[in-house]
């Protein structure tokens, strides 16, 4: 009977949601450079997008390769509406513009979902890929609506200011718009997981046959989930169109769909908050790492493949694995072995990064810049032996350390978990 909980005042829930709201409010005061503010806005929109994606992948077991269709088309409809507000004086508040994107996303969910949700599993994945390609190709066929190569641009300062002062001209106002929508959408999506539909979506993910047996049509469940997910994706698209003031064919492309898949998975699909971690990592990877190195996509691909192979629960899964330890107050017994694992990871990174950077430099830039590459303040000659020998030594040391760390972590983990389990029984 543990499943039935009736808690009129759930303190933990108030603390978590209150903390989340507080974090959203103070964030721009912690990072107040202009660049950081834009980054925060971007992370916020991606957070909604990846949460909506996880409604499919994590909660209903539907792997979609075309989720950008809903956010992208939502963004297009939103930006056309914004242009109508600005140029034709349509009396609609900009504050509610993401809602327009959301309705558009849900509409396209109704339209495309009818075809895609006929299947589940791998065929579903392939069909969403096909629909994604279809829409991406159409974006170049109808330049009047999609704006061709250049996209559609707009000016977000349109219509009447909210409360007479908020015009959404300054980035900080856009940030609070994004933050408010993020909070609302996160709460709504979390509430959805507690509804009968959210629950039965889990059942359809885990065992479609039994879900059919107790009287639910799985296709219908998938269809409804897809429509809802399309709605939230559209909201994020609407926010993106306000934030960037431009929407181009890239917004509906397969690249965008692939990106949300990568980061949602890395964040962790098994837990509600996993995609939010993924969205923060998205900010770090796409915006920060991509400005530093040419090879960021390589690192991202490698990181993703390693996560799929060794850590299918994503980062959220790793965190939640520590919860029983934390509850038993025994996390600190694991720390020494975690320390070795961390050291092994750092040594391997120290081998990987120079190697990849030197290879990229060699294939892309050495023709113009000569064999000397600047790396962390030193000069590395990519055609000479010493840097490569150094990399090789580091790699060997890293793998050796990793082998030790794996053994230690496993032994310590089994010991502590075994003691917790037997302690719980007595």
């Amino acid at each position, binding site marked *: 009977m543990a499943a039935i909980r009736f808690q009129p005042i759930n303190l933990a829930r108030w603390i978590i949601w209150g903390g989340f709201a507080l974090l959203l409010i103070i964030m721009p005061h912690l990072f107040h450079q202009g660049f950081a503010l834009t980054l925060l806005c971007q992370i916020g929109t991606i957070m909604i997008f990846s949460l909506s994606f996880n409604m499919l992948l994590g909660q209903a077991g539907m792997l979609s390769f075309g989720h950008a269709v809903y956010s992208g088309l939502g963004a297009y409809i939103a930006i056309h509406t914004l242009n109508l507000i600005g140029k034709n004086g349509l009396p609609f508040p900009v504050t509610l513009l993401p809602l327009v994107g959301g309705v558009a996303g849900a509409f396209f969910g109704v339209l495309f979902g009818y075809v895609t949700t006929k299947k589940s599993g791998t065929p579903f994945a392939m*069909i969403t890929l096909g629909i994604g390609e279809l829409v991406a190709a159409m974006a170049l066929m109808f330049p009047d609506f999609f704006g061709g190569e250049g996209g559609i641009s707009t000016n977000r300062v349109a219509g009447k200011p909210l409360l007479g002062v908020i015009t959404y001209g300054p980035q900080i106002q856009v940030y609070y718009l994004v933050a408010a929508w993020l909070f609302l959408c996160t709460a709504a999506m979390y509430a959805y997981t507690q509804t009968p539909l959210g629950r039965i979506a889990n059942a359809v993910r885990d065992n479609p046959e039994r879900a059919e047996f107790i009287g639910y049509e799985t296709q219908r469940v998938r269809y409804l989930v897809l429509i809802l997910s399309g709605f939230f994706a559209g909201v994020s698209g609407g926010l993106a169109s306000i934030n960037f003031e431009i929407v181009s064919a890239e917004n509906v492309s397969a690249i965008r769909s692939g990106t949300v898949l990568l980061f949602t998975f890395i964040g962790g699909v098994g837990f509600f908050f996993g995609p939010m971690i993924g969205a923060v990592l998205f900010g770090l990877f796409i915006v920060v790492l991509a400005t530093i190195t040419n090879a960021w996509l*390589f690192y991202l*691909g490698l990181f993703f493949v390693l996560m799929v192979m060794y850590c299918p629960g994503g980062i959220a899964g790793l965190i939640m694995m520590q919860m029983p330890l934390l509850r038993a107050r025994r996390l600190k017994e694991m720390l020494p072995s975690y320390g070795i694992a961390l050291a092994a990871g750092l040594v391997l990174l120290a081998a990987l990064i120079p190697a990849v950077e030197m290879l990229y430099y060699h294939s892309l830039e050495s023709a113009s810049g000569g064999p000397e590459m600047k790396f962390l303040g030193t000069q590395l000659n990519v055609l000479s032996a010493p840097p490569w020998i150094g990399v090789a030594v580091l790699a060997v040391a890293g793998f050796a350390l990793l082998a030790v760390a794996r053994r230690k972590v496993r032994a310590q983990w089994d010991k502590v978990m075994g003691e917790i389990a037997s302690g719980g029984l007595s």
Partner: protein
Amino acid sequence: MEFFLISMLNGVSYGLLLFMLSSGLTLIFSMMGVLNFAHASFYMLGAYFAYQTSLKVGFWWALLIAPLAVGVIGALVERFMLRRVHKFGHVPELLLTFGLAYLVEEFVHLVWGRSSVDYKVPAALDHPLFTLYGTTFPAYRGFMMGVALLMLLAIYLLLKRTRIGMVIQASLTHPDTVEALGHNVPRVFMLVFGGGCALAGLAGVIGGNAFVTEPGMAAAVGSIVFVVAVVGGMGSLAGAFVASLLIGIIQTFAVALDYSFVNLAALVGVAITPQTPLYVVWKLTIAQVAPIMPYLFLVLILIFRPRGLMGTREG
């Protein structure tokens, strides 16, 4: 007539190339239930390997070496990566190959740079095969078709007439029984995965110089190959053959046809002008619609025949 014959030949040769790609994909899918998202990446690797080896030892050796090398890489991927996630189910397998596609593309950037490489048709095949109504048909296209048909024959014979083919077919439906009879089913899976990748590599060797060898070539055919697999019927080799030819021919004809609804309406005596509602839709020519044809086809098939042209099961 001239237009029809030439387009037909080009369409069939493109369709056969698609079949070389989709046959490996279908084979792997029907056996292991794994949709290899990186399949087109192996195609790309085949083309680049062939380019590299043909610089050293010539095209004919490359035709042998490159597919084998791709096959070995495929087998290693199955052995050390896919097998590890197999226990988590099909979606993680699909995700793994998805990540792999990123890695392969970046690997190609890393080694061969971001622009296309100069992978040429061998001199022995760089001449017209025959001339039809004044249009020449290149010998290399004929060679492509020959290789594809030979491959089709070889797969058929391998699966139907040899012992290993029997084991593969049996592992497809009754893996436990096959294992109980003393065959190493995981190794059969590894061989099939490697073999499927080698087929993609072979397609890369002969497709890379017929078209262009560049880092974007995997993405260009990747989704078309999936369309072929779904339209033909998931896991059906015969279906993949029919669907490849169909899509190859449709696409080739479509890019050459410069007609739109405006022309059609003019034929029956209705004038469509820029003032007509939805003019942006009517004015599109078939050539402009060509890139989305395969996907439209996919959607139509899914609505009217969800198991694909020759698929035996829905799922």
